[in-house]
């Protein structure tokens, strides 16, 4: 039984302008100790998926359908119907979380030690003295240099990379089984990103926790994840083990993203193989296959009319495309007219 299993999740926002479906029937699962990468561009629903798992979707948004099953002591518990009081115990307890902005996630008027110790005390019976000792341990765990001094400092005295380490320390306070990391390195410089990714990989090994890593960066996914799910316009369009996905991408969107990278054309010869068109926003997802207006392989009438379902083309490799497997995957999608 997987640690987390999402079945047919639909999360929608009821705005004055009408109902907007941000996540439209996705299914996912994460085994204990594994890292799943959820990749996609802005508006594809990857962050809303994470918020749905955490029970943090705010009005006018609502989880409308589906089950979010977290295995607790051998039994699946549906987070989608869990009362807020139990959700609150779960968040920061069994499920830790870190977000993109380490600047705004910390309270500027409390010391680091205070905030880390608070996270410990929220979930455990511990005196402030014990919690502070545990905080010191956590700062060592995330490899903060000079941790005794840092405990008494305020967030503004720390660099971005160090703040993200503190956020990770807070997330780890109660030894979560699942860590949800939403673009944890996007705001950081590339050398600091390397430090944080290495730290996360090391912590995963040592603590055996599973990670749901949400990112737009295929490189980050390739280097850190066991499995990958690619999201586009509220749907999962492709899901596979990471090695398989990058060696043998099958959905035209995944193929297009990989082909558009400049590394693909090192030496500066010829234009980049850009995916034409715009990233659709939840308000106006196209009918049929949601990628069809940008797809070089779209064929009438199938792609315009009928939404493709995920099919398992090879063991563990799922694709939602009417023609996946029949396309020449080695050939990138040719850029159509801009």
């Amino acid at each position: 039984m997987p640690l987390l299993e999402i079945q047919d999740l639909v999360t929608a926002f009821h705005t004055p302008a009408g109902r907007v479906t941000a996540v439209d029937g996705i299914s996912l699962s994460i085994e204990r100790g594994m890292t799943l990468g959820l990749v996609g561009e802005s508006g594809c629903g990857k962050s809303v998926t994470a918020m749905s798992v955490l029970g943090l979707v705010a009005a006018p948004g609502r989880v409308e359908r589906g089950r979010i099953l977290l295995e607790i002591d051998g039994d699946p518990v549906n987070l989608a119907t869990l009362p807020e009081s139990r959700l609150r115990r779960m968040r920061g307890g069994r499920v830790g979380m870190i977000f993109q902005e380490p600047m705004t996630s910390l309270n500027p008027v409390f010391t680091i030690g205070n905030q880390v110790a608070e996270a410990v005390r929220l979930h455990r019976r511990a005196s402030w003295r014990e919690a502070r000792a545990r905080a010191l341990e956590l700062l060592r765990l995330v490899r903060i240099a000079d941790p005794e001094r840092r405990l008494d400092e305020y967030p503004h005295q720390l660099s971005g990379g160090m703040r993200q380490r503190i956020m990770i320390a807070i997330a780890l306070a109660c030894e979560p089984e699942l860590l949800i990391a939403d673009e944890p390195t996007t705001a950081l410089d590339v050398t600091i990103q390397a430090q944080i990714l290495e730290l996360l990989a090391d912590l995963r090994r040592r603590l055996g926790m599973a990670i749901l890593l949400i990112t737009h960066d295929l490189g980050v996914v390739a280097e850190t994840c066991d499995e990958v799910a690619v999201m586009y316009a509220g749907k999962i369009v492709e899901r596979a083990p990471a090695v398989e996905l990058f060696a043998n991408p099958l959905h035209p969107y995944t193929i297009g993203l990989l082909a558009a990278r400049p590394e693909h054309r090192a030496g500066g010869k010829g234009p980049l193989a850009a995916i034409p068109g715009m990233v659709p926003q939840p308000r106006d997802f196209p009918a049929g296959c949601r990628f069809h207006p940008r797809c070089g392989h779209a064929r009438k009438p199938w792609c315009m009319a009928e939404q493709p379902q995920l099919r398992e083309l090879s063991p563990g490799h799922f694709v939602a495309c009417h023609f996946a497997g029949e396309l020449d995957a080695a050939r990138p999608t040719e850029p159509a007219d801009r």
Partner: protein
Amino acid sequence: MTDAGPDLVAVSDLETHFPIRQGLFRTVVGQVRAVDGISFRIGRGRTLGLVGESGCGKTTAGRGILRLVEPTGGRVHFDGQDILGASAATLRSLRRRMQIVFQDPYGSLNPRLTVRAILEEGLVIHRLGDSPERLRRMTVALERTGMPTAALARYPHEFSGGQRQRIAIARALVLEPDFLVLDEPISALDVSIQAQVVNLLVELRQELGLTYLFISHDLSIVEYISDHVAVMYLGRIVEYAAAVSLYATPLHPYTHALFSAIPSVEPARRRGRIVLPGDVPSPASPPAGCRFHPRCPLAEAVCRTLDPPPVELDGHRVHCHVAARHLAAAGAAEASRQVAAALAATLPADS
């Protein structure tokens, strides 16, 4: 660059220091050395990529060249004319030929103005053309960037990020400039849109013979678009070379670390990761000697005391005592291997 004729942009010893003021009388108690003596040239029709991490001074350098931020020292020549000493009138006429595109297409376009008013602003300031001529220029600029002319009557919020960046590029093109400072022009865009905008920039460079200063932290885009690349660290250029040489034979340990830190989907491109310890120090109190030495796995005694002078071989310039020694002894290719091997030797055995 020698084959490109005279340089369009020549920067020497450019410095931009910001005073730190404190106390009742706002006494200057220190200087933030955002840009601390950098030199480079850009040939006409060429692109220089300026890379580095946040706070390294790359943006301040770009703005200093246009005098959007006043440099505190050094010289900038544009097409042979002195920019820093130019009078207000000369500067205005030169600025028509030098434009800038900013990172954030959400912040750089005034939401209260129509696209027409946004594009026309520069033409009005520079008193260019009458009304029909202005409309013609705006139409041409929009078409060049792949936007419909109907966009003129609309507002920025009606467009996506990629389209807004096209509008920002059109605004720069309306004045028919020779030189564009592109400050992280694609960083705020979605991955699938970035390649579109890069292709557009390359196309425009070819069609209009534009010269670019391309500022970015994205090394793979810089490699693709640039003829030459300068790597900045803490207000200084630490390495400068033709893009091909820099990427094939990086010399500076910092450049090696930057390359190895980029996560890649191609296993062949993943090198042994050099994870640099610590954070970038504050430019208000840069370390003595080589500024990179506190984070450098190869630092020697001399690095802690002596600022490394530039050493150049075949147009490949590096500011590093260790790399310079190898460069002088064995040439760029061998020096690059030596530095890489020395860095690999400092890695823990399991990574």
